[in-house]
């Protein structure tokens, strides 16, 4: 089943203002750079973005914030972004903060047809407000619900024409669960190979979850915190 589309323009067809998008990545690591730039070009507005972070001022989702394209962010950590801070404090931007593990599991649940599950994370905090609490094994848990999106946009290292994806190192992060949870899932990859080149034993995201795949034109892969040891 060939899922290949020509370029980022074709890949993002159908994304409209007001939609809910999931975007993979942790910090600036493993984010769908090419698609984010195309979203800026498209100028779609009032987006609800589900993404662990919100980029930095001039990269990643920060670019969409600069253009005021985002109405609501659903994230676990949104530091390192001055424009984000401004919009949030002024009330222009709605922010829903979710514990990172619950965010990951809620995306997986959305993709896996599990509408809700219990987790201890957030019990006794404002995250639990309005949520059902139940004791299991003597420990209080809260009920969390599944997340899904109109479009999930993920970034992979390699992908094949069937949509099978492979991620590299910690650039995997939220990408696999989000790929599962999109009504339409778009994958941008560094390397696009013919079906049969990826070892079926070592596929991270089976192609069934991916509707469109394309080779990203350019990956800057900016590093947020370059930390090194001195060479001898």
């Amino acid at each position: 089943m060939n899922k290949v589309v020509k370029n980022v323009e074709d890949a993002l067809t159908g994304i409209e203002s007001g939609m809910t998008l999931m975007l993979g990545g942790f910090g600036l690591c493993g984010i769908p750079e090419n698609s984010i730039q195309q979203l800026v070009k498209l100028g779609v507005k009032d987006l609800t973005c589900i993404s662990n972070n919100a980029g930095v001022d001039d990269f990643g989702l920060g670019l969409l914030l600069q253009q005021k394209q985002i109405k609501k962010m659903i994230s676990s950590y949104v530091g390192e972004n001055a424009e984000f801070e401004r919009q949030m404090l002024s009330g222009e931007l709605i922010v829903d903060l979710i514990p990172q593990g619950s965010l990951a599991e809620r995306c997986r649940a959305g993709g896996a047809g599990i509408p809700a599950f219990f987790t201890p994370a957030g019990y006794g905090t404002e995250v639990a407000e309005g949520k059902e609490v139940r004791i299991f094994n003597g420990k209080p848990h809260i009920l969390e619900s599944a997340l899904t999106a109109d479009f999930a946009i993920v970034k992979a290292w390699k992908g094949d024409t069937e949509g099978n994806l492979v991620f590299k190192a910690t650039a995997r992060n939220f990408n696999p669960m989000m790929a599962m949870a999109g009504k339409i899932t778009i994958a941008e990859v560094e390397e696009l190979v013919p079906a049969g080149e990826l070892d079926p034993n070592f596929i991270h995201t089976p192609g069934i979850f991916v509707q469109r795949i394309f080779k990203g034109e350019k990956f800057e892969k900016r590093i947020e915190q370059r930390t090194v040891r001195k060479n001898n």
Partner: protein
Amino acid sequence: MALDKNGIAKRIAQELRDGWYVNLGIGIPTLVANFIPEGIEVEFQSENGVLGMGPFPFEGEEDADLINAGKQTITVQKGAAFFDSSMSFAMIRGQHVQLTVLGAMEVSQSGDIANWKIPGKMVKGMGGAMDLVASAENIIVAMMHTNRENESKILKECTLPLTGAGCVKRVVTELAVLEIKDNKFHLIERAPGVSVEEIVSKTQGDLVVPEVVPEMQL
């Protein structure tokens, strides 16, 4: 004398046990990795999806695809594994990580911890902290005993929004090692040269002081 950050990290490192998987938070906790006691092998988990973290890379060997939860470039050791975020928190929530070390703005004598939000200020988010504190069997909080205004952060009740309720069992500060039990802080050790009086005066929560309070052996 009060400990510096490395001193706190060194004292916490004494709590490590051979064979443990450990999650270290940002700041002082990260330094714990530099003081692993001889003869003890531990493995570091980072919640963004890596087990078997190694030291920072040499200059020029950084890989944008290989970072820790603090977004710093890292390396991995032999036998490392990468995985996705849901698997990572399956490890944490499922209590497969034996120890979590993290910082805090406040802790209370009931084991509550606050470290993610100051109302009225910019909120950065809880990241993985709520999952970590809600699930870890062993949590050690690495923090300063007081804030910049010299007010105690070791409290009867937290004043800031909580990260987790009733989860902290041990706190290591620049002055002392405290255990939380029966809704009280218990003074276990004091930093070398630090008086019990100083610790008492800087602790707002109820503090149980035994007759003899040993000095830390660093």
